[in-house]
């Protein structure tokens, strides 16, 4: 059996890649995909721990996280479409109407 901490290291790497992607990418959809990567890294962590503890609780959490991610995607893509109607771009650097 593969030890749990291998999964944890993998999910930490995935989460970090996601965070780096959010911070460096400029395309709205790519940023959102990086956020999905972060969320899936979280799911992997939950599943790994649930396997280690022989619990159902962690797996249940994963289902809720997936539902949350799906709901966010539905609303997020609608926001992107609405923005695209105005700007004909979803580059987040172009979203600069408001500055302090």
């Amino acid at each position, binding site marked *: 059996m593969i030890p749990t901490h291998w999964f944890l290291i993998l999910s930490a790497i995935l989460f970090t890649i996601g965070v780096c992607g959010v911070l460096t990418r400029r395309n709205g959809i790519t940023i959102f995909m990086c*956020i999905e990567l972060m969320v899936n890294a*979280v799911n992997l*962590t939950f599943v790994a721990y649930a396997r280690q503890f022989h619990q159902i*609780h962690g797996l249940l959490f994963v289902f809720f996280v997936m539902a*949350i991610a799906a709901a*966010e995607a539905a*609303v997020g893509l609608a926001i992107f479409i609405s923005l695209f109607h105005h700007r004909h771009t979803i580059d987040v650097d172009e979203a600069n109407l408001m500055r302090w």
Partner: protein
Amino acid sequence: MNLTPLLENGWINAILPELILSLGGILLILFDAFAPKLRSATAPLAVIVFVAACWGELFVVGGNFFGDTYQISAITVIFDCTFLLAAILATLFAKAYLAREGFERGEFYALLMWGTVGMMMMAKGLDLLVIVLGLELLSICIFILVGFHRRIAVSNEASLKYFLMGAFATGFVLYGTALFYGATGSTNLADFSRYFATADASNPLLTIAFILLMSGLGFKLAVAPFHGWAPDVYQGAPSPIGGWLSTAPKAATLIALVRIFSSMTPVIQQASWMKMVAALSILSMIIGNAVAIAQRDLKRMLAYSGIAHVGYMLIALLSLRGESVAAISIYVITYALMNIGAFGVISMLAKNQNDPQTLDDIAGLGFRRPFYGLALTICMFSLSGLPPTAGFIAKFYIFKTAVDSGHMTIAVIGILTSIISVYYYLRVVYFLYMKEADATSHAIDPDFFGTGALLISLIGIFAIGLFPTPLFNAAGAAARALLP
């Protein structure tokens, strides 16, 4: 094997307000779909649903429900009433706003209702799963409400920014939860307190998990340095939503934090996590108040002042005692009354959402629109914490609990920064009464609902400011039941 029943007795009573709001939201959408000619009746119907939910609070029985994941007590009733109050005020202000902008829709109020349900779940959740679900229900409603004015670019941009930031922050909250699950073997806060009673405070996994959770929730609270989204979102969102968004979700996150923190004692004190919270609080008070001085746009100024107000509220969170929870609950009620009131006046004075509301736009307004001018003045006095308004009482109580529990330095920083804040709040009053008006002033239609909401705010501000004792006693008794 011990089988517990799936649903405890009295579960319907326990979540009666949530049920009323959820069903009310669905009914409003159906009403909008089947009777589009009666759209102007949706706002009064929404207010009726909110008042019905308040009435539902009377039948709520205390206790733990749904397998110890949902705790109902006197303090959650107080917070529920705060959320409902904020939602009612936002609804009343939104009626004229939506009619003016030409998109009066039932789903606007439905989203407010479901967002309120999300906040109630956060306030009552005894399990991180319930808290996260409530947070997400709330966040998704906010994403849509912020971008509700989809025909104008500013609102779209605000929605995009809040969406990307909010989803990013959710990732952090979830990862923090996952690591806590790994450390404790549970997401239930009761199991947390059992685990943390004997936990090793030097465990780095716990510290990483706490930092992740706190930075995620810090985004939602708009504390510095996670405040970047707040000014843009408040400026771009429909003004009544700006007021609602700056008060009610913060209250929900704070009460969730109270529960999470109290389940982590004594490690939270030993591992100096509270020092991180104190740093967030100090940074918020300084950045919020300093940058607010530089703002000309009223909504952006209120956004930065909101960052400072969260800083004050976090002071009370540093000492996990009943007193401090009572102080937070009084502060959030007061803040809801005065901040939504201020946003409401700004909303009523603007020609449309694209119209920037800068200090120059309200010059001389105090004499042309005596009631609105007076209302904005009182809200500003209360926000800056001058007696005899509620803002003074709330701030006094926060600083008193901080001094009582030995956080002298941070209380002094709070008092000094709130003295700075008087400058930019009173500058609004100065522009209202002592500046010459522009020639180009536009007519404002009388707004029955908005005026009613303003009256509620003003009466509330003076009622708490002059007769705080009943609220003090109720909040104090409720908070001591939650924490000793």
